[in-house]
């Protein structure tokens, strides 16, 4: 399991918990005091990622801002932080 927390001054807090087993994402939970647009964006991303190979999950998460936005959060910055942690801990699961 890895946990990424992100917060900047005058922004919103976001936390992402990823539960990984045998290079497969068993669960992912976003939490925090951010807003989403459109309604349902986060839940559909969580649903799409569950059960995916980690490499594929990373691709889906990377496209989050194509479908909408997390308001109050710099998603590109959060995503970079998440990818860097995943590479460090689960590098063997990630096909570049």
């Amino acid at each position, binding site marked *: 399991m890895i946990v990424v927390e992100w917060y900047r001054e005058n922004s919103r*807090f976001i*936390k992402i918990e990823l539960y990984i087993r045998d290079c497969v994402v068993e669960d992912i939970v976003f*939490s*925090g*005091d951010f*807003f989403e647009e459109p309604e349902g964006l986060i839940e559909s991303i969580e649903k799409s990622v569950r059960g995916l190979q980690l490499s594929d999950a990373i691709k889906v998460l990377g496209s989050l801002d194509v479908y909408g936005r997390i*308001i109050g959060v710099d998603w590109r910055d959060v995503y970079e932080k998440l990818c860097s942690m995943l590479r460090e801990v689960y590098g063997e699961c990630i096909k570049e």
Partner: protein
Amino acid sequence: MWRLIVDGPRNAAWNMALDEAILEARIQGVVPNTLRIYVFSPSAVSIGYFQKIKESVVFKRIRDYGYDIVRRPTGGGSVFHDEFGEITYSVIADEKTVGFDLVESYQYICRGLIETLKIFGIEANFKPINDVIVNGRKISGNAQLRRKGIVLQHGTLMYNTRLELLRAFLRVPKVKQEIKSAARSTGVTTISRELGRVVSLREVLNALIMGFEKTFGEMDGESYTPLEIELAFRLFRDKYSSEKWLFKR
């Protein structure tokens, strides 16, 4: 013309259910744009849609006081709704009226709060994304949800909130605490604190109606439609009073 509903005190689950019921009725086009003003009784803490309950509030302490805890349909952070010092409003309106752009729409609706505070002689400013501040301190937090072209925005106005309870009930993530304290963030305030006298609910209610009328124009005082009551009852029973909803994250 806008509809104005000044509601009696209700518990947290009912208040959330009514806001969402009006949203659904507005989507169906059977009610006009609406401003609803209400109070939580008993006092309550509401948490944002994406917040984890154990990380955002001191659950047992709130329950020990006999207060409610409810998850909102909107994002944002946790809020203490003090029965004796906080008034809540909700605006349910089409995007065309309040603005398609998120920040602009927050700013437009928050103008009603800024006008309200002006009536008390308090100069307030909008702080993007969603706060109203006085002398650098937050006096109102606001949260928005958009569904099928209709905006639901609800927000608080602290007039005499017991700030010691607010601090005792709400948790702030460590990473946020550290950055806020390094930035010397100055916290929250109330109308009473700014004026140096205790203001009453009646005074704030009257000013709030006048403040929003300056922004939205004249409003028609009305009540709920039977459809809204029916929808609210269902939402109250199946969603906002259920543990499943409260603990969903």
